[in-house]
């Protein structure tokens, strides 16, 4: 930053108390600077809330409204408990990917913190939501609030009509499979499909619902025995909730709609899970630069900057792996440093950078940053942009943990031979497909007992955790007939099986 620039203006405020006028003034100045940097945002809706309201927001997955479920109550109780005991502080802000973009500011914050939050959330996150390709393709910022309103009302109506216990059970089961309610590999249809397309989809669904293949029991004449081998679905289906919604034989229409609601909500959060590092990094980068921009113009005082830098450095602090505070790589640290690093590579490249990032070194930094923000997710972003400089700075190393071997092995460190491997390992670590077991709907025994078979395609020989049987019970509740789960090695051999109801019981019958 060019801190030597002459200060021309009066500071906006000198004390730590905030007022609505000050928030407005800061927002105007920060917004002006953000515009100069080309940050394209949704309009902002800044809401000042109390700590209790913040806990409410926490416990409804950050959304301003959500349907009712006991698990949100549990979340609330837990948050409240930990907050009251002083075990955790509340976040300074929550920001919602909607149009207008809703950002919550806590009333306890000082003016500096409010300004930091405005820069971070209202311009950082907001522009990321609007610009990043994953958010553009997967979510519809204009519709989410309306959809949640619809979902809440629909589920309340269901509770009145079918009893809240029944709805709760159904939601429990859906939540257990929520991570499998998204299309990972298939891109969804453009969200802004016109009314005609929607109607057509509705018709298709209607037909699909009423011509359910599983109920098609009319025997074909002269059906050859080989027909038994038919697979349903023809291709394995990754979106288990979608499959349930469309094909579960025993579900009532309202139950299908509830499954759909959970699926849609899950889909909405899917991009957030995949862009945590980038999203936070982008927001931190911009709050840092925007507030320094204010300082350079003389709009904020030295005291303001001291407080800001204090918060900033604690947000982007990475405890080393052997610290008692260590809980994985801090996405803020990684993201922020990578963003700053891109700028550094553009502005002051070293020879090493020229070798590693020939297309980046010496180009205008603002364009490079926007390009990175628009077109990557965590996995590909790290693969593309993690530089040797940063690996050295963070002193990253890879541990290889093979259950077959009694010892752990350091497989790469920050040296010439390790850079590329660390970059790949870290990238793989953020690949959602590796983090969650890859489980797909494999087959339905259409002609027989209608049992559903899932396949778990094992990654690096990692088995399923002990809760798999519990999840299968939930799936069994949705499907209505027997459910099997097979863990399959890459060579196609089945190495573990789960059944619901458990197999032993079946054999004794």
């Amino acid at each position, binding site marked *: 930053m060019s801190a030597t620039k002459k200060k021309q203006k009066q500071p906006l405020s000198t004390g730590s108390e905030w007022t609505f006028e000050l928030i407005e003034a800061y927002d105007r100045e920060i917004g002006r600077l953000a515009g100069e940097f080309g940050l394209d945002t949704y*309009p902002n*809706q800044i809401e000042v809330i109390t700590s209790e*309201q913040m806990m409410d927001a926490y416990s409804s997955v950050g959304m301003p409204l959500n349907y009712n479920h006991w698990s949100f109550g549990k979340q609330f109780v837990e948050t409240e408990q930990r907050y009251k005991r002083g075990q955790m502080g509340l976040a300074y802000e929550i920001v919602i990917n909607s149009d207008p973009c809703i950002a919550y500011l806590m009333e306890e914050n000082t003016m500096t913190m409010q300004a930091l939050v405005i820069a971070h959330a209202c311009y950082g996150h907001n522009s990321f939501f609007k610009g990043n390709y994953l958010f553009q393709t997967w979510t519809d910022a204009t519709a989410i609030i309306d959809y949640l309103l619809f979902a809440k009302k629909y589920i309340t109506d269901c509770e009145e009509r079918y009893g809240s216990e029944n709805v709760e059970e159904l939601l429990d089961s859906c939540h257990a*499979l929520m991570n499998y309610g998204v299309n990972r590999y298939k891109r969804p249809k453009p969200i802004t499909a016109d009314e005609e397309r929607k109607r057509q989809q509705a018709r298709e669904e209607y037909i699909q619902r009423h011509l359910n293949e599983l109920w098609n029991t009319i025997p074909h004449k002269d059906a050859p025995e080989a027909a038994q081998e038919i697979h349903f679905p023809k291709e394995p289906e990754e979106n288990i909730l979608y499959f349930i919604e469309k094909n579960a034989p025993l579900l009532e229409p309202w139950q299908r709609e509830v499954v759909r609601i959970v699926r849609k909500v899950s889909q909405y959060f899917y991009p957030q899970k995949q862009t945590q590092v980038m999203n936070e990094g982008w927001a931190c980068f911009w709050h840092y630069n925007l507030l320094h921009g204010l300082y350079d113009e003389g709009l904020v005082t030295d005291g303001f900057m001291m407080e800001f830098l204090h918060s900033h450095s604690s947000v982007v602090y*990475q405890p080393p792996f052997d610290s008692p505070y260590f809980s994985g790589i801090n996405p803020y640290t990684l993201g922020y440093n990578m963003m700053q690093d891109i700028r550094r590579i553009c502005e002051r490249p070293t020879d090493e950078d020229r070798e590693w990032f020939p297309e980046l070194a010496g180009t205008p930094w603002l364009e490079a940053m926007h390009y990175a923000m628009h077109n990557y997710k965590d996995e590909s972003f790290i693969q593309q942009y993690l530089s040797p400089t940063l690996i050295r700075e963070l002193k990253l190393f890879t541990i290889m943990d093979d259950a077959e071997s009694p010892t752990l092995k350091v497989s790469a460190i920050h040296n010439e031979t390790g850079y590329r491997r660390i970059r790949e390992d870290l990238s793989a670590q953020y690949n959602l497909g590796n983090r969650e077991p890859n489980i797909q709907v494999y087959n339905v025994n259409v002609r027989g007992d209608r049992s559903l078979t899932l396949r778990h395609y094992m990654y690096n020989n990692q088995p399923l955790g002990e809760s798999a049987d519990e999840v299968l019970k939930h799936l069994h509740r949705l499907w209505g007939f027997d459910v099997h789960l097979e863990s399959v090695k890459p060579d196609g051999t089945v190495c573990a099986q789960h059944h619901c109801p458990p197999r032993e019981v079946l054999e004794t019958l």
Partner: protein
Amino acid sequence: MSYIIDRRLNAKKKSTVNRQRFLRRYRKHIKRAVEEAVNQRSIRDIDQGGQVTIPSRDISEPVFHHGDGGQRKRVYPGNKEFVEGDEFRRPQGGGGGGAGKGKASNQGEGMDDFTFNINQDEFLDFLFEGLELPYMVKKKLRDATQFETRRAGFTSSGSPEKLHIVRSLRAAHARRIALSGSDRKRIRELKKELWSLEDNMTDPETKARCDALRAEIEDLEKKVRRMPFIDDFDLKFNNLVRIPVPSSKAVMFCVMDVSGSMTQAIKDMAKRFFLLLYLFLTRNYKQIEVVFIRHHTHAKEVDEEEFFYSRETGGTIVSSALTLTGDVIRDRYPAGDWNIYVAQASDGDNWDGDSDSCRQILINRVLPHVQYYAYVEITTGPHQNLWLEYERVREAFPETFAMHQIEEASDIYPVFRKLFARKMEGAA
């Protein structure tokens, strides 16, 4: 463009529904915790909220995740001395060791139990869940002596302090519209005509017509303006009515034997029982009075401190206490105004010749007036003749009289529950 909104005044307790659902779902666990708390706590803080602990395996929401095993690579920051190819033992149990730890802790293994607090109201809800005060119905409007003022719409007369301004002005507005309607319509018509004529003002005839129109419009507008802004019959007043309500007053008699045979431990148990009853009554009645009567050979009305902590020796004549109870009821608590509850605690000792008169007094003087009479006998020994006499009372008044034996402190809460269990068919 930003909008700034102050949400701080929005409705609070948005999470209440979810919280209640959570409590409902884990009601079994919470109830167990509450029962334990009641048995373990000291008397003074028995009505505080409480901490509830639920094993995390009962509360976790299952999802598919990777278990231990297979090969996994993880990247860590802050390398100090490792070089490529280093091997070392797998650290046990996470503690700061590094590898593999970040994963384990968020998968519910070795996680602490889920602990949270419930507040006083919730605590008491669970404590008294499924219990009810018997025969509250009896005091229904039958001899209601209390009234409550409630809103009952609006009237057109009343005292100035009950004036409902919004409705009054609304009525005035409506009246002005209604009464000036025809005039304003005429004004509109005239104005239209005037505008159409104003286009060619050259013609003197038209001009005269215009002037006439203007004069008429002015007259009418004056008339409209003369309409009073607010009139007597626009005024609307809040209407309040007095309706009789059932008595919300209750009196609780604590009757206890303080003869030499009652040790401090027994008295503590009795006190807990009384306390539970008191808490329970506070949830049902607005106003509660407590009368402490203790007795050995004589009965005496005392204050709480003396009731529980002073010691006296001597024989035991229970009937003295019952007579005094009857007197106090007659003098101070007419059954029409008060819901009367009596709780008696004793170790069962009584002077032999007295038990029969106890029965007489109960049946004739006390039980006809009370809502409920609960007798607990705190003893580990065999029943004596007081118990036998009381059994006969129970036969005579199966609805209002209940008795039970308590052997040790942990019996108190279960016995209390039995005595007040909902839908009592015959006592206890």
